[in-house]
């Protein structure tokens, strides 16, 4: 269901990451209004070599198709793995190479 777009670029030892997740981010109230069941990502974690570099827990009050940007110290060629968990405890993982 949920798709991810990940971009990671290294410059002078700092990796800049942009990631976009597909989700309606509909919390209880909004779901009632639209006549759909609630669906939102509640947890995102990014790991490089099993070390956590980014971690966020969220409610449905993030905007639709959440876009996050962040930086961390890393190397070119490493792989960054994103895992999301939505409100139905569905998990999705996607990996991207750092350019």
């Amino acid at each position, binding site marked *: 269901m949920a798709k991810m777009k990940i971009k990671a670029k290294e410059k002078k030892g700092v990796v800049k990451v942009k990631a976009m997740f597909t989700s309606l981010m509909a919390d209880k109230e909004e779901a009632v209004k639209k006549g759909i069941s609630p669906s939102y990502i509640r947890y995102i974690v990014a790991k490089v070599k099993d070390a956590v570099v980014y*971690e966020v827990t969220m409610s449905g009050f993030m905007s639709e198709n959440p876009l996050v940007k962040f930086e961390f110290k890393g190397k070119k060629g490493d792989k960054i793995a994103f895992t999301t968990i939505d409100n139905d405890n569905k998990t999705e993982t996607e990996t991207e190479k750092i350019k």
Partner: protein
Amino acid sequence: MDRRKFLGVGLVAFAAIVMPGTDLSAVDFRETMPQAWEVEKTVDGIKALYGNGALKESGKFSFKAPKLAENGGSIPITITSSLDLESIALFQDANPRCLSCVFSVPVGAIIDYDFRIKMRQTAVVTVVGKERGTGTLYTSSKEIDVSIGGCGG
């Protein structure tokens, strides 16, 4: 800094050196603190998440947000800090539940987080950060005007 405080800081620093890697594991705040996600008001939300600690304002901890948001469905927020923080949370009064997101910051991370939130009306947004080790709470807040409400409204 008085002597007592200084000793306390030293002890904490020592503990941090002795036990490395304790906070490498992932924390899902939805599971560890379910009650904090149901609170309506910012003040109560901060208490539910971080306890009754005093909140400090600091020039080293701030966030960027537009003064006037045209579209309440997508308000860009940027949190930056040079402090060594353990976790950062964003609260707002506009929605039925105040907590928007909680970041747990890994050791040695660069704090420069960019994301977007939804707000259904004009309200004050508060960002709270907890310093690693000392547990000091830093805060920063701003009022954001929303002309068209988000949340499908």
